[in-house]
């Protein structure tokens, strides 16, 4: 009992509980959900698929967690994924024999660089121009789709260079390769933010940028680099997305990912009001989002309807995080009299 109470105090408890609940639902209602087989030397099954498919969201969630911690938001990530996928596909290109036009690693680096530049653009608009984060990143959300379409000449570009498939389809020691990339990026980010003061600086900016500046923190630079990092993460996510289907579709690649990523971060316990972040929680959040998606698919519901469910989940979770609702539940009468005052006035 004491163990349970201890556990429930941990921040990771609630996201994990939600995940377990969702898994239990699947255990009863989705046949063969937990079956894992070994085929051709690696693991196969729904659970492995969930892990594999959540990788692109996890990359985004890592970057977005830091952005949200500064009380910002980056809704351009889906479009940046499309840009990165487009750039890498155009650079590798190649014919049906699978000979890449440019060295694969170089092309990947170029795509991630372009994505990082896109993130820096966002950072510039937010930190230097002083635009609201939603608007600044909304510009790239829409213009970015255009850029992705122009990059790929408004066509779906197919890739045949075998080695590139490793990112999205490859396996290492039985597990999807992309998971190792996620783990690496996550660990690196955690080390940099939690073993140095950087994480505290980010949180300080999220709580009160002016106070942070007076405390000697270069708030502008922190905000700038956080957005650049979000672009970088979206770039890597784009590589994996492109590699998974070995094609780049400027119109559909990464479509709606911003929603999934925000949902992952919020489900993981990072509040939209900034000032705190929780990377591990965001990872669990991404798993919840992907499990939810897989569960919805398992019921033969059209994938687009999954968005409906997710929209409702976002509303419910942000309601639960709302301090007004909490205090409202604590003192229903208090709220009523406040409302009465306003109506009377």
């Amino acid at each position, binding site marked *: 009992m004491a163990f349970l109470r201890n556990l429930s105090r941990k921040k990771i408890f609630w996201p994990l509980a939600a995940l377990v609940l969702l898994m239990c639902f699947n255990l009863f209602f989705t046949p063969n959900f937990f079956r894992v087989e070994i085929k051709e030397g690696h693991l196969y099954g729904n659970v492995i698929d969930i892990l594999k498919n959540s990788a692109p969201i996890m990359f985004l969630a890592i970057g977005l967690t830091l952005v949200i911690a500064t009380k910002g938001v980056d809704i351009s990530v889906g479009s940046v994924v499309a840009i990165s996928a487009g750039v890498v596909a155009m650079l590798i290109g190649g014919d049906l024999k699978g000979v890449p036009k440019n060295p694969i690693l170089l092309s990947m680096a170029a795509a991630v660089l372009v994505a990082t530049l896109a993130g820096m653009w966002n950072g510039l608009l937010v930190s230097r121009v002083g635009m*609201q984060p939603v*608007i600044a990143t909304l510009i790239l959300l829409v*213009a*970015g789709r255009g850029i992705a379409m122009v990059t790929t000449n*408004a066509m779906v570009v197919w890739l045949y260079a075998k080695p590139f498939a490793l990112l999205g389809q490859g396996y290492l020691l039985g597990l999807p390769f992309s998971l190792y990339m996620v783990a690496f990026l996550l660990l690196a980010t955690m080390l940099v933010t939690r073993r140095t003061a950087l994480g505290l600086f980010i949180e300080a900016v999220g709580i009160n940028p002016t106070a942070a500046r007076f405390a000697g923190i270069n708030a*502008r630079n922190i905000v700038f680099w956080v957005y650049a990092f979000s672009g970088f993460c979206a770039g890597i996510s784009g590589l994996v997305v492109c590699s998974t289907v070995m094609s780049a579709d400027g119109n559909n690649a990464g479509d709606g990912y911003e929603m999934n990523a925000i949902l992952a971060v919020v489900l993981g316990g990072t509040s939209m009001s900034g000032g705190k972040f929780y990377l591990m929680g965001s990872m669990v959040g991404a798993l919840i989002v992907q499990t939810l998606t897989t569960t919805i698919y398992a019921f033969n519901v059209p994938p*687009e*309807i999954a968005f409906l469910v997710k929209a409702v989940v976002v509303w419910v979770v942000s309601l639960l995080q709302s301090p*007004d609702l909490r205090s409202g539940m604590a003192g229903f009468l208090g709220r009523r009299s406040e409302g009465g005052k306003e*109506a009377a006035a």
Partner: protein
Amino acid sequence: MSRKGLINLRSLPSLVTLGLFLLMFGAGSLSFPGFFSLQNFLNLFIDNAYLLVLAVGMTLVIVAGGIDLSVGSMLALSTMLSSFLLERAGWKPGQVIPTVLAVGLALGAFMGYMIHAFSLPPFIVTLAGLYLARGLCYVVSIDAIGIKNEFWQGMANARIPAEAANSVSPSVIIALAVVAAGGFILRSTKFGRTIYAIGGNEQSAVLMGLPVARTKVGIYAISGFCSALSGIVFSFYTLAGYALNGRGMEMDAIATVVIGGTLLTGGVGGVVGTVFGVLVYGTIQVLIMFQGTLNSWWTRIAIGFLVFLFCLLQRVFEAGRGKSGKDGSAGPASC
């Protein structure tokens, strides 16, 4: 600063927009034969009537310092609902139109309530609304539904003569009526003045005893209503309901409002500027069409760029106003 000076300063962005429109239309007329005609100008209204309706709702929201990202998919939902009710459920236009408008109004009011009652950031509530409406479209029908209803066909083909051989569609009349109504609400009603007060400083508006709660829910309801009406106008134009209609249109709507000189921080702006914004938007599209070699995706990039320019202009403009206390300090402004 004198009162007159302030007004001039405030109308400056919309004058800049008007200038930009004249410049672009002029440049198009000089570069392309057949560009300069009254009908081509009227076509800007015919082709963008739905956007004008959306943008008026968005103007109200942005003047109040909020944002509504759900308008594009609300438009899609309304085209979907209209076509479904007309073609599959066999309702009459007289029943369909009020129903669709009521759905838009209700969804908007619901989002407004969540934003106000629980102090949630507008963008997160309306972003979820975006996906909710898009999901609802697919609940109605997965594939597109063509509209064969006589009234709709009639509205699509009817032309109202404007001058000599030139004409406009009934949708343009609807859109202009919405603009007039929006302008009237903002300028001459208590509700409208409260919107400006909330956009200027919400806390002050509360302390002044203005009905902030009612107004905030009201503007999102109006925006939902405008999206639904815009969807109906859009389906007059395309004669089909399709779940992917209006993808990214929230950006078009926000873009036209921003280009029209409404400040994203709220408190300043109006529907006249928004009309100019829509004209600029339409002209960009026509220019790219006339130019011929650029693909239509350049429109998106051009619009993104214009929004950037105007946001920059707004920041400079705000810095010029100076005394507002927003000294462009570091860190993200709250949404």
